[in-house]
């Protein structure tokens, strides 16, 4: 368990990573709708993922309104693949009762 990526393991961040994993890119509203997270909650988790280099955040404007586009970086995609593999290994090794 020690080598599991705890940054991804947190449920809200796992949800964010999963949704970004299945698309090329998405905007902030999309992620908020799909994950059901509040604005502040989503922002703080995205900041942590961005700092870790897992998520690319591009801030721009759509007309005169701010518009944030998000995507997984290659490192983020690799980290998520590793997380899935590792978690499957750990839980797959458990004996059935």
């Amino acid at each position, binding site marked *: 368990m020690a080598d599991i990526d705890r940054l991804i393991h947190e449920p809200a961040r796992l949800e964010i990573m*999963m949704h970004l994993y299945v698309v090329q890119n998405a905007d902030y*509203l999309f992620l908020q709708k799909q994950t059901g997270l509040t604005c502040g909650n989503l922002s703080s988790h995205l900041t942590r993922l961005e700092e870790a280099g897992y998520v690319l955040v591009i801030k721009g404007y759509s007309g005169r309104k701010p518009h944030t586009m998000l995507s997984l970086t290659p490192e983020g995609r690799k980290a998520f693949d590793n997380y899935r593999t590792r978690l499957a290994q750990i839980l797959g090794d458990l004996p059935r009762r």
Partner: protein
Amino acid sequence: MPKNISIENVERKVFVSYFSDGMWDIYGGLILSGFGLSILTGQMILLIVFIAIAMVPVLIRKPIVAGRLGNVTFSIKREKKTMKYKTAAWIAGSLVLVSGALFSALYSSSSLPAWLDTMFENSFLLLIGAMLASIACIAGYATAVRRFYAYAVVVFLAFGLAAVLRPQDMEGIPVTAAGGLILLTGIVILIRFLRNNPNIDQGADR
């Protein structure tokens, strides 16, 4: 365990959510209603008017959906798959139009042998129904939206009934009714979508 974190399910859920607005249902329902009404009244202009009206939900769909669900670019694999099915649906749609035009031209020329004339008259509506149902099936398969399969059944049954009612000159009724049913379903889905997804001000972006 890996099945519990089902990436495929997440992808499917996200993709299906982009068809929960009912606009395509309204589009299909309007065209089918127009087709039925034009048969019923003998006024082909009605079909053209309904096709023109049906373009409205298609044109306003993107800003309405994106303003409520956000913008997303799906995976390359999904985009390719969607393009493949869109092409298939367009080909099937074009076949319906071409066969319809061909039938009208042949039928009005009265130069067909009697047996071919009878065969056309008996099976034309079924053929059109089967083609339209196959378009609905392609749409259902491409979008993973199950109600499109139900529409395929409704359309095929409506055209089957139309073929039966043809001798009484009432073939337009089941087609119009099927179109109305799909249109009504689309309107209900749209109202529910608008109610469940209020337009969030993008200024609230982080």
